[in-house]
């Protein structure tokens, strides 16, 4: 069995980018180039708060998705076990 990372509460993302940086550290890199998670920000009309939109590269599942799930302070992610066969 292996685990995959899924976004379950996208609207809760606060834009902290801890998930992005955690995934990068798992690749022994500090920076955004080649990041497997991206956070895009967009200003909403009639809202004081910008909206964050997450995109995940499927290659993220070759890393440790559990650590990415745990580092998110807003519980945006869950991990799901899948049959690797």
């Amino acid at each position, binding site marked *: 069995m292996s685990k995959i990372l899924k976004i379950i509460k996208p609207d809760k993302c606060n*834009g*902290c*980018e801890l998930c992005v940086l955690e995934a990068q550290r798992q690749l*022994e890199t*500090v*920076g955004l*180039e080649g990041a497997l998670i991206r956070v895009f920000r967009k200003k909403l009309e009639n809202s004081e708060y910008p909206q964050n939109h997450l995109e995940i590269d499927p290659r993220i599942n070759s890393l440790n998705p559990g650590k990415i799930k745990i580092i998110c*302070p807003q519980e945006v992610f869950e991990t799901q076990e899948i049959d690797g066969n």
Partner: protein
Amino acid sequence: MEINSKKVLLIDLAKQTFEAKSYSDLGKYVGGIGLGLKLYETYLTTDPVIFSIGPLNGFFPFVSKTSIVLSDNGVIEDLYIGGNLSLRIRFSGLDSVVLCNKSPEPVVLDITNTQVTFKPASIDLDYLGLPGKRSLISFEKEKVTVNDYFSTPDDFLGQKLAEKNIKGISFTGTEVFKPNNFSAYESLYQELLSRTTGLRVEKGNYPSCSNCPMGCGKSKFGEIGGNVLIHSLVACQYADKVYSDIGVIFSCLNVLGYDYTHEDLENLPKLIENTLKQIS
């Protein structure tokens, strides 16, 4: 990374030129307010606005602010703004960005690493930089914000950018870093991230600065003045219990390869004081 020199992007708004320069003699100013004041002194005649980060920005949690030094009618102000700007400056490979002189016409700056493109003020900021790797400074009425949310306590930055005819700035950073002892770096990162109870803010559901999990209600408003060591690093003032600990600071600096000594940090307040005297 040339660890002990400081890399500065100089932008001459009047001539619409730019140059990235390395200063091997500015390491002792550490970063943030220390570096910003020294650069202010150096470029005094150009009425500079200086954005600076410290050696830990981008690498460690709660070190999420960007220092801004400018003159408000002859009075030097040091402001600190949150959001993701400090990480974009770090990932540009820069320590400071200095905006010199005044643009002859309204302009938008599109900065990617050490390259600057001068765009007409009519351009839509959303089309600049690389989404996901950029930070946008824009005006909402007269107030300047980072990513349409994070601002500074007073409006000095907005007034100064308006004086300089700057209508917006996009910062994009695409460089990556690989600390030599990555496992030690990772351990220290996780250890510091676990210290949220040592912060002077409560966890909230507001937009968060990059590399900070708190989502606190304070980050929107930035900071002005305060502890020079914290603001040279440039950590958040609400993380002062974490980053006033000299052992923590040296652990962080050492794992990144900096060779600062205790004397360097002990002498920093005096160095800043002397720089301020020179300016005034």
